[in-house]
């Protein structure tokens, strides 16, 4: 998937992946896509909850070799 910005939150625990996502989205334009990489398994539910509550669509969630890859579109 094409993306405009990437943030690697590998090794970070709750709530850092969410806080870093929020910060990464802050300087992006509406419609741009953020790729977030995390190793915290709690991030799977947290990213969905973040998306639901902030309205930034979570385009996809995937697991690859122990890492979780998220693509989120800025609303």
């Amino acid at each position, binding site marked *: 998937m094409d993306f405009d910005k990437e943030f690697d939150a590998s090794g*970070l*625990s*709750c*709530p*850092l992946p969410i*806080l870093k*996502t*929020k910060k990464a989205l802050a300087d992006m334009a509406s419609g741009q896509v953020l790729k977030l990489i995390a*190793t915290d398994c709690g991030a799977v539910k947290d990213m969905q909850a973040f998306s639901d*509550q902030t309205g930034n669509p979570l385009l996809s969630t995937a697991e690859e070799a122990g890492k979780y890859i998220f693509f989120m579109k800025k609303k």
Partner: protein
Amino acid sequence: MTTKKMAIIATKGTLDMAYPPFILASTAAALGYEVQVFFTFYGLQLLRKDLSSVMISPLANPAMPMPVPMPVMVQMLPGMESMATMMMKQKLKKHGVASLEELRSLCLEADVKFIACQMTVDLFEFDKSEFIDQCEYGGAAMFMGFAGDTDICLFI
């Protein structure tokens, strides 16, 4: 859509109990909540510029996981608190959990409002210069003005 609000009353000043208010406040702020944290009694320690005195004690804390079982008599020995604090901080770092300083800065960056209890400052004769500049001083009534209108209100 109106902005959701969360209020937290932080009353504890130990390392373990310092995490919940900062984690919840920073996360709620990231989710778009307007957040205020009222620090009172021992919670005021969390507003110090220098957080190195925020510690954890194994004493009277039977739920704290220990590498080896430790009799209470041993937990009382001098230096045990510093040792437990050092070990806890190492563990937090190893697991990628943010430091208190980092979480607190993230709260401030996200416009979480910190209120320090003026009565506690007077009671313990604290020097305000030891606290971070980004906090306001106020009392219970001031906090109620915000708390009375929140979606989530927690006492920690």
